[in-house]
């Protein structure tokens, strides 16, 4: 590979494609050639650079400068000024407010982040196996082969690392693997059915570093004794499916998938299953049913998938982010993983920060980082300098956290003490003036739509919750409606078949705990007065 002086990385993801990233990339390549810099500057594609909603984003290395909101009109100037003369186009920030140079490692989303999962996202070309390998991909597998680690050794490393499932529940991954029943045929399933409203971290991992996921799946397969894996990806995620398919082909071509991986005794194959629009399929047993070509009805547990899973065989289902942690843990060891995060929740967590923050986007920080730090350090603070009101953490199946919760460390255990959950890692930030009643109404409508209808508590309960909240929202509710909201949701929590019906209590209780007055203000008369 020829050495060049500068690299210009164009972030290609669903957001930036929409803003014309491919055209900008093409224009950059031409402008670099026109300036006679072809031998000195290389223009490359990478995954998301972490900024979302800001159009086409490019990064210039080694200068560590980022431009957001780049259009074809700015390309010539960036090439002429920055790449040719070495002058950062600061001036554009004034004359063209959409183009803002941001120095990486400064403030906001580009603040130095301890990246494990997103280590290569936004730095490598996700369509190039060579770049992934140069950035450390497949070193975990290499270590297993070189040091002749047994499957039990791999399970032990992951157990010792303290890695907990990043899909929401936080169950120890090593334990999940060790619970897998014995048998000649087993499966590894990667849950990429990311449907929790406000969550798109898995999409950006799939789009930005698919080989990391493949390696994680091979290692999981080796650990539990499975030879086949499937990646179940949401049908709406067209680019994720394309990039993952491409990465799988490359891995087969280079002997990183298939029989005798790297001439070892390890064999593993991976295929992709495309979802068709059903939130409940994010639940692991519903996902298994759907993968078998059936309605995505959750199964009764036990038996757990570790005993009876896909096609009735022992199966491990892990979230994308969980599997993306596996290769670095195996490569660097359990001790290294414990240098990050908290004692009971080691490692990092990937979040999507959204809503009324200055810079919405994707970040990765150590477990145990406070919500305040996430919003004010990485999210750039509140949009327009407004006052913080609340954050909805974990999507629809999450909980509201008010101002008094800003300093809670974000990890599975600390949030549970506050009756909140880490969930999918979606952080929807709300400014003063936002109606919690209306937001909760949206959430309850969402649950009604997504209830699969298999069990009565959820099928009927989600409908009732909508009726109560609609009455309250329209000013026709009574205090009975408020009580029923909690009572019905509590019954659903206790009696529903799967986490979908068990979840509405979380947003309802937390909303009423901190913003009960807002709900009561909508109730014009009490039951007694009506009677």
């Amino acid at each position, binding site marked *: 590979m020829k050495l060049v002086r500068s690299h210009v990385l164009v972030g290609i993801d669903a*957001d930036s494609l929409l803003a014309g990233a491919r055209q900008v990339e093409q224009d950059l390549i031409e402008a670099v050639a026109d300036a006679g810099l072809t031998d000195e500057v290389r223009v490359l594609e990478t995954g998301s650079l972490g900024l979302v909603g800001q159009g086409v984003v490019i990064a210039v290395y080694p200068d560590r400068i980022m431009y957001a909101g780049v259009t074809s009109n700015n390309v010539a100037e960036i090439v002429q000024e920055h790449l040719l003369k070495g002058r950062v186009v600061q001036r554009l920030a004034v004359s063209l407010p959409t183009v803002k140079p941001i120095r990486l490692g400064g403030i906001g989303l580009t603040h130095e982040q301890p990246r494990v999962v997103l280590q290569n996202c936004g730095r490598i070309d996700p369509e190039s196996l060579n770049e992934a390998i140069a950035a450390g991909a497949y070193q975990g597998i290499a270590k297993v082969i070189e040091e002749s680690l047994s499957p039990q050794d791999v399970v032990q490393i992951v157990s010792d690392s303290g890695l907990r499932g990043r899909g929401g529940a936080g169950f120890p991954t090593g334990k999940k693997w060790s619970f897998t029943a014995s048998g000649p045929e087993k499966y590894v399933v990667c849950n990429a059915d990311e449907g929790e409203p406000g969550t798109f971290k898995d999409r950006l991992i799939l789009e930005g570093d698919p080989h990391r996921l493949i390696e994680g799946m091979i290692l999981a397969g080796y650990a539990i004794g499975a030879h086949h894996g499937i990646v179940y990806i949401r049908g709406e995620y*067209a680019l994720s499916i394309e990039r993952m398919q491409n990465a799988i082909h490359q891995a087969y071509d280079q002997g990183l998938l298939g029989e005798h991986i790297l001439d070892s005794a390890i064999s593993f194959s991976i295929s992709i299953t495309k979802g*068709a629009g059903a939130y409940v399929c994010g639940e692991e047993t519903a996902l298994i049913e759907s993968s078998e070509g059936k309605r995505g009805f959750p199964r009764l547990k036990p038996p757990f998938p570790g005993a009876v899973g896909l096609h009735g065989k022992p199966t491990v289902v892990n979230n994308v982010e969980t599997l993306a942690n596996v290769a670095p843990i195996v490569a660097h060891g359990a001790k290294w993983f414990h240098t990050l995060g908290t004692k009971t929740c080691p490692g990092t967590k990937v979040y999507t920060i959204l809503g*009324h923050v200055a810079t919405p986007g994707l970040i990765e920080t150590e477990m145990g980082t406070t919500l305040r730090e996430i919003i004010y350090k990485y999210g750039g603070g509140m949009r327009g300098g407004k006052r913080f009101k609340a954050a909805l953490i974990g999507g629809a199946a999450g909980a509201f956290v008010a101002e008094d919760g800003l300093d809670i460390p974000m990890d599975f255990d600390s949030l549970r003490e506050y009756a909140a959950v880490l969930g999918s890692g979606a952080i929807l930030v709300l400014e003063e003036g936002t109606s919690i009643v209306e937001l909760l109404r949206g959430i309850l409508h*969402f649950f009604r739509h*997504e209830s699969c209808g298999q069990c009565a508590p959820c099928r009927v309960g989600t409908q009732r919750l909508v009726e109560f909240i609609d009455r309250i929202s329209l000013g026709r509710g009574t205090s009975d409606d408020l009580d029923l909201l909690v009572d019905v949701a509590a019954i659903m929590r206790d009696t529903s078949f799967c986490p979908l019906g068990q979840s509405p209590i979380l947003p309802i209780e937390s909303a009423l705990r901190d913003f009960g007055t807002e709900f009561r203000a909508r109730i014009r008369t009490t039951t007694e007065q009506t009677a």
Partner: protein
Amino acid sequence: MQRLLERYPPAREHLLEMLHDLQDQNPQHYLSDDAMAAVASYLGLTLSDVKGTASFYSMFSFAPRGRHIIRICASPPCQLLGATTIQAKLREKLHVAVGETTADGAFTLETTSCLGVCGVAPAMMIDDEVYGNLTPERIEVIIDKMRREDEAS
């Protein structure tokens, strides 16, 4: 149709893929009874089983749809940033309710759960394209432009 099905082994685990492919190749973007009957016979399932499975998933349609399918996000993050206004604008502009197709067969208006592009909320998808940072004014521009392009082709 048969050739499309035979790209897959006749196993039920490929049912969703087959349904996706059949719907994609239908010019009216839906699963006809004929298509589902063909799948049923290929997989040795009953038609009701195939239909029952397909109807579970919101990406499949059983009635003909317009040339373009507009799917406006109905999830809380988009709602927070104005999706309700955008949906009302679309209904007014197209003279349809959610789930209906315009009289000229050009557009079908649907809602969707989170598209995962919340950074540009409120967002919608038209066919395979995502549109973000929507305003009522942008809706005018986008729909008018698509109508002009359709007439030109």
